């Protein structure tokens, strides 16, 4: 009995070594999810990101659930999600954009090349609104209900398979 107890430390060591080895093979979740879901959108009022569309403010999120798309002209996955945003717009979804650390000429160039699904785009040159809503990168898309409450966060570019999910979340936010 006593000699069995002597093996306990070694068994514990083997367990932790095994656990460490196993965890090394696991994919790490690189995304930091916003903890603002269910919270009201913080107050903000951003200047237009370029001369073609008005800027964006918290008060623009009223009437019906809308999408808040955090993006930038310098962001490559944003090019990949552009067609999906247009598909959402074609389904009657209103998308308000916030351009992070961007220049008017670059925003205009991006929209001319990849299409413009937005009704408004605010310019956030110091990521102020991005930090205030707990967004950790570009692109990210939030569902905001008619009362201005954050209801859902999509991290990363919107794939074709994400479009129905976002439509369902918009419906749920009604």
């Amino acid at each position, binding site marked *: 009995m006593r000699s069995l107890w002597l093996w306990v430390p070694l068994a514990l060591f083997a367990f932790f070594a095994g656990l460490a080895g196993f965890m090394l093979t696991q994919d790490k979740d690189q995304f930091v999810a916003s903890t603002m879901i269910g919270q009201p959108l913080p107050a903000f009022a951003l200047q237009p990101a370029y001369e073609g569309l008005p800027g964006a403010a918290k008060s623009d999120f009223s009437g019906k659930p809308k999408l808040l798309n955090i993006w930038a002209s310098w962001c490559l996955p944003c090019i990949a999600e552009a067609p999906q945003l247009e598909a959402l717009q074609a389904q009657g979804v209103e998308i308000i954009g916030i351009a992070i650390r961007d*220049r008017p000429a670059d925003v205009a160039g991006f929209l001319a090349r990849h299409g413009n699904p937005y009704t408004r785009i605010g310019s956030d040159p110091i990521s102020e609104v991005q930090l205030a809503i707990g967004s950790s990168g570009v692109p990210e898309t939030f569902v905001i209900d008619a009362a201005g409450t954050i209801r859902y966060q999509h991290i990363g570019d919107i794939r074709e398979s994400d479009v129905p999910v976002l439509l369902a979340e918009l419906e749920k936010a009604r």
Partner: protein
Amino acid sequence: MIRAAVAALLALLALPLTAQDSMPPAPYAYTQLDDPRLEAQASALMHTLRCIKCQSQSIADSDAPMAGDMRHQVRARILAGESPDQIRRWLIARYGDYVSYEPAVSATTWPLFAVPVLVILLALGILLRRLGKRRAGAGDAA
């Protein structure tokens, strides 16, 4: 053919560079506060906040644009009279405990604080019992 492959490879290498913006940093990203006392507060706080973009660095250590924007928030808020604790709570409300490097006791982290105390108590208990036995044994021998 090989030249084209090399060019394609180099183009791939260049991608991370093009995925950066060209905007100037936020006003307080690289500029210290004039008041050394406030700057010391801000600096201490920045060393204990995680860069959300480059997750194994503090925002004080990172050159990522987002870390600069976070430093701007910290300094601007300190300047506006907020306490470091208020700013930490503001960020935790947005990104969760993960954003803070300062360990806090919570529903998920309490075992980290409780287990060492328990182990020390256990060790003390075993030690006292053994010492007690030895003393009792010594008493018998004498």
